[in-house]
């Protein structure tokens, strides 16, 4: 009787310790999910204080909205690439390319107004396809292929705008730049991205490829096909964003889109998204990261930082975040 009592007590203790351990792990997981939120709140408050509230003025909030719009949409597209362990360094250049192609077609009167949006998306998708297809067929790392794609696209944009910047009659498209329309587009992209990533084969397969390419292949996934598809999805979001920024500003210059890929990369890392991809990839991380980048860029400008130095600051920040989230033992970023 006594012996049994002791045993039961020991067992109870065992269960308690086990539960504590599980709770501890859960807490750790939750904490890593909350940190990006704190990041946003921190920089919002920080910039509100140092700019004496300027960052929170209605006109500036509108600015932040506009900047977040582009970064969020492309970050959603980028989730498909980064989740399978890929990388795309051509995002900004492709935005430029897409703008140049569309602007030239408009200026030559070659396409009717309603075709502008589809063509813009098409250019992005085709470049994404090219990057992905070269990557999987000749086996060159996506990082390298996309860098080459960046030089090619930048070259085309510079050539086309070398004589003078291209101006389009942007009043024709003022409909698209109404706040409500953009909000609807943004929510649509997030919604479709979320469902495609979380509840369809596409997202699940890409996460599996990011987790283990060999296992994915042996489990019946056409690794090459889905890899190419990921770059096409990212490309299409770049094309979409290029349409909106072209019709908002009405101009394409040699610097259109410059440095955009680093904003995306920073957004991905700041949101706590694992750069190695895999099971922990989440759309929400990318969106949070995108908003953080937008607020950060905007805040730095209003604070009076030289625009030329902002990229430098972002670079330093990027390094710090990667350092903090790098899990040395596994050689993984953010786990």
């Amino acid at each position, binding site marked *: 009787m006594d012996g049994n009592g002791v045993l039961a007590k020991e067992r109870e203790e065992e269960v308690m310790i086990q539960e504590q*351990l599980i709770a501890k792990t859960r807490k750790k997981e939750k904490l890593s999910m909350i940190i990006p939120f704190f990041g946003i709140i921190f920089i919002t408050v920080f910039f509100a204080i140092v700019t004496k509230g300027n960052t929170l003025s209605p006109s500036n909030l509108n600015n932040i909205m506009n900047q977040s719009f582009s970064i969020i949409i492309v970050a959603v597209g980028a989730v498909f690439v980064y989740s399978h362990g890929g990388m795309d360094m051509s995002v900004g250049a492709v935005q430029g390319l897409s703008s140049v192609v569309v602007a030239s077609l408009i200026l030559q009167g070659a396409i009717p107004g309603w075709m502008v949006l589809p063509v813009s998306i098409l250019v992005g998708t085709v470049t994404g396809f090219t990057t992905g297809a070269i990557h999987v067929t000749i086996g060159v790392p996506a990082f390298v292929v996309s860098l080459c794609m960046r030089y090619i696209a930048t070259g085309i944009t510079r050539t086309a705008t070398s004589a003078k910047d291209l101006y389009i009659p942007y009043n024709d498209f003022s409909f698209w730049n109404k706040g409500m329309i953009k909000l609807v587009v943004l929510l649509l992209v997030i919604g479709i991205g979320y469902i495609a990533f979380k509840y369809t084969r596409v997202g699940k397969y890409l996460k599996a490829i990011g987790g*283990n390419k060999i*296992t994915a292949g042996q489990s019946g996934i056409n690794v090459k096909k889905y890899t190419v598809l990921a770059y096409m999805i990212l490309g299409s979001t770049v094309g979409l964003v290029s349409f909106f920024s072209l019709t908002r500003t009405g101009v394409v210059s040699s610097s259109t889109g410059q440095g955009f890929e680093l904003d995306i990369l920073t957004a991905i890392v700041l949101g706590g998204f694992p750069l190695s991809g*895999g099971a922990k990839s989440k759309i929400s991380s990318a969106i949070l990261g995108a908003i953080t980048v937008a607020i950060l860029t905007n805040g730095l400008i209003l604070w009076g930082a030289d625009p030329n130095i902002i990229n430098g600051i972002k670079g330093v920040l990027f390094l710090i975040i990667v350092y903090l989230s790098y899990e040395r033992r596994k050689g993984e970023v953010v786990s």
Partner: protein
Amino acid sequence: MIKECLLETKGIYKSFGPTRALVDVSIQVCRGEIRGLIGENGSGKSTLSSIVAGAQTADKGEMFFKGEQYLPKGNVDAQKQGISMVVQEMGTIPGITVASNIFLGNLNQFSKSGILSISKMNKAAKKILTEIGVPEINPSMFIDKLNFEDRKIVEIARAMYTEPEVLIIDETTTALAQKGRTLLYKLIDKMHKENKAVLFISHDLDELMSVCNNITVLRDGNLIDTLEKEDMSIDKMRRLMVGRELKGNYYRSDYDGSYGKEVVLDIRQATTGVNVENFSLQLHKGEILGIGGLSDCGMHEVGRVAFGIDKPLTGEVKLIKDDVLISNPQVAIRNKMGYVSKDRDKEALILNASIKDNITLPSLPILENGFIITNKSESELANQGVDQMEIKCYSPEQRCNELSGGNKQKVVFAKWIGNGSDILILDCPTRGIDVGVKANMYQLMYQLKKEGKSILMISEELPELIGMSDRILIMKDGLIQKEFARSEELSEQDIIDYMI
């Protein structure tokens, strides 16, 4: 004779996330002792040994080595202090030479003002390789040129060159054939005679009985008992490991060996770039067809070809019923084939994904409703797999890298049972798995056979081939040497002659 304690652990605790790997483990190993360490997968034996070897640190507890407190800063440090370990997984680094592998992390001794003397290093490597009995391995050769077994032997050389006083051997013999085993037993005997100590982890209870002086049993991270030589018996060890009596037969009990007439999978004259030449076999409905041989005999490649992972250069793999040629794993899976790779962690599982994600992966097309795959349908399939395979976990959301080897293998099986595969290609299905789980796997295979499913079982373990197969094909150098039918009289010795 007064025994001098060489190594002692006191109250070691260790947990990985929510999994408790070790709970208050204290052991004493004396000079001259060959200590066996047994337990099911996940019992903590590998964790304990890697803490002793300095590869991991304990959450709590102390260790003493030669009477002094012992706090290794890593496995290189432990090795310098006199404790070496040969690990369970492949521990060699590809792309560098045998000698570089042996002296990994200790190259300084061969370098002078920053320049490494390759010839000195090779000479030292040659010396140690000769000492342990493999003068034929050339130290300047790239490690990739060696087969699995010889690479393991190189690891043993790496553990031995510092002349350790405690040698830890973790499941190494699973990867070794006769040559490697003999070599290892000799080393163990030498350690014993030199009054040093060995910690020996193995699933092979017969082997432990013959090699060890005493055996410590772990279960769920707790030290259960330490048996002296005179108390050891296979039954007792099994009972202590599992914590209950094992019921029923280990392998299947019938010797009828019958199977359906219908051929389901037909490999015709397949030749691959590596190891397989003009290979043909026919797998029947309801048949367990075993393929055995040495690890480089080509049988693993046959499995890969059968599932479409490697494409044969000539010849074909055909599913008879639907007249389909298997050209890649997607076609194979669409036609209800499943494949369990021998390399569980690298090929069969996504380690940092959840049990659920892993189980559902090949079944996603089946779960699709329109384009959408709901959480509910995934969870149902995963729960079903967890229940049916009795996977030990606190939730299907638990990540696979927190599971023990046996539980991981159950997840792999659940993948293919879950999508209703009719033909299973199992490459070393019980490699590195303890008795309890093994028995489950054998029962499952037999049940599948009775349901009319077909199994191609590739195995390096003869007892398992003899115990489970309806037919056994023995391969050597990419060719089938001999076919055996199921029989009660069939012995390992009958088969071995055709393998070597």
